[in-house]
């Protein structure tokens, strides 16, 4: 399955958003997620199934004005 993570195409064997995040190295990181422009809360990641072509955003705290 090919998914677009933060603007980069990735191959993933996992379907659940939580598993994809672990696969990509985000375990224990303070991040927030969105799929296809919709916010997905931490508690909802396990039952959020991704499909081919989905767009995933993984955001973290950053400097801001």
């Amino acid at each position, binding site marked *: 399955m090919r998914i677009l993570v933060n603007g980069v195409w990735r191959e993933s064997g996992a379907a659940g958003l939580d598993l994809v995040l672990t696969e990509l190295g985000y375990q224990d990181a303070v991040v927030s997620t969105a799929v296809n422009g919709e916010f997905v809360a931490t508690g909802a990641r396990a039952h959020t199934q991704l499909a081919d072509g989905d767009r995933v955003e993984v*955001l973290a705290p950053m400097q801001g*004005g």
Partner: protein
Amino acid sequence: MLQLYETRVSSRLLLGTARYPSPAVLAEAVRASRTEIVTVSLRRESGAERSGQAFWSLVRDLGVRVLPNTAGCHSVKEAVTTAHMAREVFGTPWIKLEVIGEDDTLQPDVFGLTEAARILSQEGFEVFPYTTEDLVVAERLLAAGCRVLMPWGAPIGSGRGLNNLLGLRALRAHFPEVPLIIDAGVGVPSHAAQALELGCDAVLINTAVAQAGKPVAMAAAFAQAVEAGRAAWEAGPIEPRDFAAPSTPVIGTAFRR
């Protein structure tokens, strides 16, 4: 004390956390500014680099409140989704709502802004809208549920100070009870003092401190300016006039008939 929604703070200076020469200088500048609120943002995180994690750890150690922004959002949808993501990560209902309408000036899309403010206010967010000094827009934002306004002084990062004094005075006069925080364009401490002198409640500074030759010293200078400006406003500044008015009494002047 300054009340922002249910929160009361002593400092009338808010500090942005971007564009400092190093994290250590940022931390020192925050302390020197005596601010109680810093702005933060959300950006794409790499699973390999995890640069956001160190930043978040640094900010938490500063012991100040955070005001997350929706910087970079150009639509209502983007801003609302970013606000949801920020609320989860930062654990605060506060959101500095930015919906950018024009890339050269970074001026707000006030139509998208009011719509996003309405949605987020209904969802329980405490919205700090980055807006212009326009009175009608301000009224719409308040009707949408905002209880703080953040009018720009000048375009973000421009350092030009308060471009429309008349407009800001009118905003202050029309909404005397609404906290006004000048959000953008402040370049030097005198601009900040001027904002407070004309009755604005606080200023948010980022570039003017972060990009100064000595950011920590500049942060301290802004802290003094904001305190002086507020004290001046409370002391009741005189009205400007067009002609001279002698300050020394004229009665008893020598060499006059």
